[in-house]
């Protein structure tokens, strides 16, 4: 039995079996997703890595060589469906998967840009997505590519063929639900949030078996709702969010409390937590819901095994400004006073850049990343609560006499110091790169407005740029001090994601149509390329056949063009589009 030939044979057999197993699985594993930071060949998840740093160790394209970056290919999405292209593409095994407006998904040959297949989701006429018909991206698992649609479904397609493998209804679109965020996969579970307007939508985080789409747990994010968990094949109630109803809400207002988790979440492996932000409370008039209104406008850490909330931190208690707290929570190691702290960074709609301890949600710092905040002067580090100025939109019932109420100027505007577009963190420079916007709003109470043919107590608002020469500002922020190290000003509002690399580079797009590269340390603009339409998507990078590639969707749209006021003047000349651009270094 110790025959060496036999041993060899057994070894060979073992290797063959291993290979066989690998071939059978032929796809993206949990391990691959967890280790995406080391995988330069592929882009496997939303956020580039599950912690959302949007950092790549690739450096063939760097501050010195980026001047030689030229298009490798471009692909047009076609159709008349040219609206906002906010997606982050994924790359796996030489294939690119990118979602597009109107719930479309394209599989492209990553080398040539040739289309392999496309999936066009059949959308019912009656969908009413709040903010354009965008989609932010897909998730990969096994041989599936999974994405959410505007009619609130989750669709899993075969990566090879584009055929539907499973489809699950996340919500009823007729009740105002929708979905546009990229799902993530954590330990075999697809994690999604919910999108929807003000029609009594209640925010939730769901976990589904990535292979079947079957619900494993569900966590409403509004105090008072019980969670759900799969037990012995049955979905049963789990613990009540926040312990009990009515702790921070009056009457039954919590039942339609809002808190939509419309941007989806990220994951931190070290603390084994899903980190997700929640939206604004409903209705918008804060006077009707005295109390903190937990867990709206908050950051949550959720146990991926059970859906239990481990900790929360609320950025805007009793929000009256539409300061969604959905912004991404990016995990990073904070080097401060010779210590390494497990931290998480968040650039909130309300204009503060928060650094929390991600083991317990404790506030470490909160510093402004925009130039003007009328609603608060700072955040109390002891209590974690904002120090409010009292400048709040008034109570509309006070103007029910038929006269327009007093107008208040409030900054940031409800579109936020930063909106959905994801920031990046570069561990080499130790800086966050935050796509911010400088705007405020006049907000007033309408004595009487109308909704569905009937009288309504509404509010009016006009978004106003704060400065003549720019709205968008890409800011490099030192999370240890809150200091803004450099900034780049852009005439139109910034609305696209950021990528940073070990090549000392920061990439982001502009509504004016450029993909731009900046020196990560100094902010010097090193390269730009005109893509033909506004860039509001998320750039990615990967390595193929020994060369580094950069890819970004192009196609102007999203929420900004839907809101008028003075901002409209700055953007009305921008043209629509819908294409995928890929670049590499020119070889002479």
């Amino acid at each position, binding site marked *: 039995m110790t025959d060496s030939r036999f041993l060899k044979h057994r070894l060979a057999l073992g290797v063959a079996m291993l290979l066989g197993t690998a071939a059978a699985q032929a796809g993206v594993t949990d391990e691959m997703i967890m280790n995406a930071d080391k995988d330069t060949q592929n882009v496997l998840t939303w956020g580039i890595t599950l912690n959302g740093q949007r950092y790549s160790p690739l450096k063939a394209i760097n501050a010195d060589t980026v001047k030689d970056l030229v298009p490798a290919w471009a692909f047009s999405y076609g159709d008349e469906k040219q609206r906002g292209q906010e997606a982050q593409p994924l790359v796996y095994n030489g294939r690119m998967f990118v979602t597009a407006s109107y719930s479309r998904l394209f599989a492209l040959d990553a080398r040539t840009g040739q289309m392999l297949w496309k999936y066009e989701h059949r*959308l019912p006429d009656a969908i009413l997505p709040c903010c354009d018909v965008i989609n932010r991206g897909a998730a990969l698992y096994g041989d599936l590519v999974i994405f959410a649609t505007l009619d609130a479904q989750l669709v899993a397609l075969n990566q090879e063929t584009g055929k539907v493998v499973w489809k699950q209804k996340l919500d009823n679109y007729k009740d*105002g639900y929708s979905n546009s965020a990229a799902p993530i996969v954590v330990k075999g579970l697809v994690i999604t949030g919910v999108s929807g307007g003000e029609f009594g939508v209640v925010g939730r985080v769901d976990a589904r078996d990535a292979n079947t789409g079957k619900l494993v747990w569900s966590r409403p994010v509004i105090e008072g709702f019980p969670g759900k968990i799969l037990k012995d094949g049955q979905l049963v109630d789990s613990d009540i969010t926040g312990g009990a109803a009515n702790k921070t809400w009056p009457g039954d207002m919590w039942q*339609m409390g809002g808190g939509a988790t419309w941007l989806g979440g990220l994951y931190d492996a070290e603390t084994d937590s899903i980190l997700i932000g929640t939206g604004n409370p409903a209705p918008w008039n804060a006077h009707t819901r005295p109390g903190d209104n937990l867990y709206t406008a908050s950051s949550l850490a959720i146990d991926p095994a059970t859906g239990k909330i481990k900790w929360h931190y609320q950025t805007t208690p009793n929000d009256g400004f539409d300061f969604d707290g959905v912004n991404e929570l990016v995990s990073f190691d904070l080097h401060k006073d010779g210590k390494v702290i497990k931290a998480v960074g968040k650039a909130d709609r309300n204009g503060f850049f928060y650094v929390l301890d991600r083991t317990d949600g404790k506030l470490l710092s909160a510093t402004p990343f925009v130039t003007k905040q009328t609603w608060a002067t700072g955040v109390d580090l002891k209590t974690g609560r904002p120090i409010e100025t009292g400048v709040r939109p008034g109570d509309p019932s006070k103007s029910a006499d038929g006269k327009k109420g007093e107008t208040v100027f409030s900054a940031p505007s409800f579109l936020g110091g930063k909106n959905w577009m994801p920031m990046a963190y570069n561990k080499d420079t130790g800086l966050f790169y935050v796509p911010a916007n400088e705007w405020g709003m006049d907000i007033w109470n309408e004595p009487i407005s109308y*909704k569905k*043919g*009937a009288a*309504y*107590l509404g509010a009016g608002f006009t978004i106003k740029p704060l400065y003549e020469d720019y709205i968008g500002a890409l800011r490099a922020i030192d999370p240890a001090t809150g200091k803004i190290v450099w900034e780049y000003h852009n005439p139109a509002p910034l609305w696209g994601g950021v990528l940073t690399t070990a090549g000392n580079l920061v990439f982001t797009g502009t509504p004016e149509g450029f993909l731009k590269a900046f020196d990560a340390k100094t902010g010097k603009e090193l390269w730009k390329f005109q893509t033909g339409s506004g860039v509001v998507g998320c750039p990615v990078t990967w390595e193929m056949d020994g060369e580094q590639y950069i890819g970004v969707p192009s196609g102007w749209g999203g929420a900004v063009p839907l809101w008028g006021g003075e901002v409209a003047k700055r953007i009305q000349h921008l043209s629509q589009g819908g294409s995928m651009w890929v670049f590499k270094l020119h070889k002479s």
Partner: protein
Amino acid sequence: MNRIPLAAGLLCALGLGAGVALANADALSTVREKGVLRVAVYKDFPPYSYTDANGRMTGLDVEVGRALAERMGVAMSLEPIPASDESMEDDLRNAVWKGHYMGWGAADVMLHVPVNADFQQRVDKVTLFAPYYRELVAIAYDKDKIPDLNSLDVFRKEKVGVEMRTVADQYLITTESGAYINNVRHFRTPDAACAALKSGEVPALAAQRGQLEYCLGGDRARFVVTTVPAPNVRVFEWNVGMAVRASEPGLRDALGDAMESLRQDGTLQKIFDANHVSLNAPAH
């Protein structure tokens, strides 16, 4: 000079009054040419426009639309639209002057539109006209449980139901600095709110009067429908009419005349009676 008699003669032949504008009657011509009037109404909005048990659109506004088309000598094509999340301005854009980017809407006329001078100033792409009735916020209550609803202060103790995100909801949760919030029960649909009143889950329900009347139907033995017993609620009354694109005075006048004729010969009254809704004359 001879264009005017000719045009007038044509219009007479078409059975219209003299109020029709002579110039730029594009939409009206198209309606007549195709023999179809495209009428936008809300989906899921009983008793005004909703789907019946057989899956057909029915309701007061649907019947008004059909009667208007008949009076104009054309057929009606319904364009049921979902109410937007934000505001009536969005509905008018989708239903009338632009259409929705998913491809629906842009009908010839939309019904159930508030006709109000202030609101007209904000929606200059459309003309609001021909109010057919006056709507107001009212309260229905159970006489056995609330002997007399002479003040809203009853709701410091008693529960009151509302459909969420309606003016009745907003009024009750904001008035008196929120004194009634804890007793306001929210329902997701008017049907659920109505069922709660009838089952006794709530002793009172606040909504548009037409909705309350439809909810109770002929059943008035137990229930009373009254206006809101509070000062300062006059603003919660409004005229309900229709909207066409501002560039279509011809269509506007033809529809206005048709509506007037429905009122005068009692057709409008019959439609309201059949739907158990009071026809209050619009205020001028």
